[in-house]
């Protein structure tokens, strides 16, 4: 039984925290999420009771923490329906996406090959591929988005051709929050012999993810967007692809042996990608976060977020002074502007009422050309937000004026 009030008790940030002297309402969950006590405790426990390095020592403490580390990998794998050996633990989605673009893209792309993506991507899933294109001579192409900014299967089919070697995109985009038809796209990409890379940073925390059913080749995501610690994330890759690709970094833990002549024998995946001491406490916290949200249930989280979104939309969609850029999206991201008020001014006023939202171009700079605005305000919901919080937000939005935004400075 989904009980949001009970859930909120698990989060210290949701219990009595204020901003600008008002009860905090946190609607910036697409940026990062709050952590439940169990995640915080797990992180602290590593430092107070379990400190040792992983895969290093022949003593109980190191063995136990190594076991915990591998248990985290198993939990991550199960969460997205992968095998543990297909899960590389990284510092986050950005590191994971860079790893693919470097280790696979720069190694296998050839001049004239095409990297196919969209204009709605986050910088983390575009810039590493720009670099791969620059290094290899590959070419960048974009799938045209529909008028509402959504990626349709029809447009994807029309953009696909035999030169395309990589299709890379977010299954939920960070500005508009549309859900891409990944499973169907993967099938089509494979028919053309291309691989499909999924930026799951906004997707994995919000909808049930099944890499096996979707048949995607790579999927990247971060722990901190699903109630876990910062500085940790994962790259899923099909094992064969992981075997072929190069690591981004070399060092301790990634090699089996090396000699004075410079011969290196790398370990098998995923270990060959994990050089150096990882953020052990964050990896353990990653597991605790997945355990936590799994206990709530991804289906419940999805359904509740959808309900919250509908509730919010029903109240603001007819406001004449509000422009909404993604009225039809199914997820908890609402992107809008207040007419004649610059996004950052509006966001400052919203902040003065204790509500955290994000103003800007949300690391998706090329999308802003399509929306024909230089910046937007993004409210992004998660399963611990409430209808009462939305009521307050709606009230603030209803009453906002340029004069009120300027009055903040006096």
């Amino acid at each position, binding site marked *: 039984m989904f009980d949001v009030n009970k859930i909120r008790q698990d989060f210290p940030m949701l219990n009595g925290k204020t901003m600008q002297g008002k009860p905090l309402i946190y609607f910036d969950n697409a940026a990062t999420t709050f952590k439940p006590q169990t995640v915080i405790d797990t992180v602290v426990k590593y430092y107070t009771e379990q400190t040792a390095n992983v895969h290093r020592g022949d003593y109980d403490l190191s063995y136990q923490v190594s076991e915990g580390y591998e248990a985290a990998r198993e939990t991550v794998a199960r969460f997205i329906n992968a095998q543990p050996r297909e899960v590389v633990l990284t510092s986050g989605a950005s590191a994971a996406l860079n790893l693919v673009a470097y280790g696979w893209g720069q190694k296998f792309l050839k001049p004239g090959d095409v990297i196919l993506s969209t204009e709605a991507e986050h910088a983390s899933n575009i810039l590493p591929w720009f670099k791969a294109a620059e290094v290899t001579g590959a070419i960048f192409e974009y799938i045209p988005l529909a008028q509402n900014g959504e990626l349709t299967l029809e447009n994807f089919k029309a953009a696909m051709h035999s030169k395309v070697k990589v299709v890379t995109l977010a299954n939920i985009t960070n500005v508009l929050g549309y859900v891409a038809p990944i499973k169907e796209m993967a099938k089509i990409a494979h028919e053309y012999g291309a691989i499909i890379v999924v930026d799951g940073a906004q997707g994995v925390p919000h909808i049930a993810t099944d890499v096996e059913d979707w048949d995607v080749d790579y999927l990247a995501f971060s722990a901190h967007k699903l109630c876990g610690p910062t500085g940790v994330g994962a790259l899923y890759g099909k094992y064969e692809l992981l075997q072929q690709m190069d690591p981004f970094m070399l060092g301790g833990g990634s090699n089996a042996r090396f000699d004075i002549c410079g011969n290196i024998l790398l370990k098998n995946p995923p270990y060959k990608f994990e050089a150096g001491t990882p953020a052990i406490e964050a990896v353990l916290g990653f597991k605790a976060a997945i355990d936590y949200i799994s206990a709530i249930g991804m289906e419940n989280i999805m359904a509740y977020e959808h309900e919250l979104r509908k509730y919010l939309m029903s109240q603001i969609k007819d406001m004449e002074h509000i422009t909404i850029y993604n009225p039809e999206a199914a997820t908890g991201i609402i992107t809008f502007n207040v007419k004649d008020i*610059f*996004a*950052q*001014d509006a966001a*400052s006023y919203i*902040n*003065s009422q204790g509500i955290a939202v994000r*103003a*800007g*171009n949300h690391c998706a700079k090329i999308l802003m050309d399509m929306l024909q605005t*230089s*910046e937007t305000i993004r409210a992004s919901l998660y399963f611990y937000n409430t209808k009462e919080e939305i009521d307050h937000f709606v009230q603030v939005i209803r009453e906002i004026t*340029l*004069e009120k*935004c*300027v*009055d*903040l*400075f*006096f």
Partner: protein
Amino acid sequence: MDITDPMLLRQIIMDHYQYPRNKHAGDAHHNHMIHMASESCIDDIKVWATIENDKITDICFDGVACTISTASTSILTELLKGKSIEEARTLIDRYFDMIDLKNVDLEPLEEAIAFYQVGKQANRIKCATIGWNAMKQIIEESEGKHD
């Protein structure tokens, strides 16, 4: 000017935001241009100036910016146009002292005193100083100090 009258100060900001002065792209007669695209905010403005014989004969700006950036830069263009480099530098220093809440005489800043409390919204200080930082850089550049 009565800085205890928020209505008056608000009016100044609103006026300069809705009817910004000297807001247009520069041209060949401007011998300095700085592009300010902050990493931490959305504002993206360019400031042009003509500096001849140690005197600022013209300033203009253009770009996308919030109320505070637009109004503070608009006010800057009016205040510094026609001033000598030395006078401009003194005014800019005084403006930054005001933003830092230092106890300085605000009278010479004229309409720019509208921003004397901008520090209350700490995350917006960069908006109130973007044009002023641009002008500071232009002056340094004109003196060959900019690297």
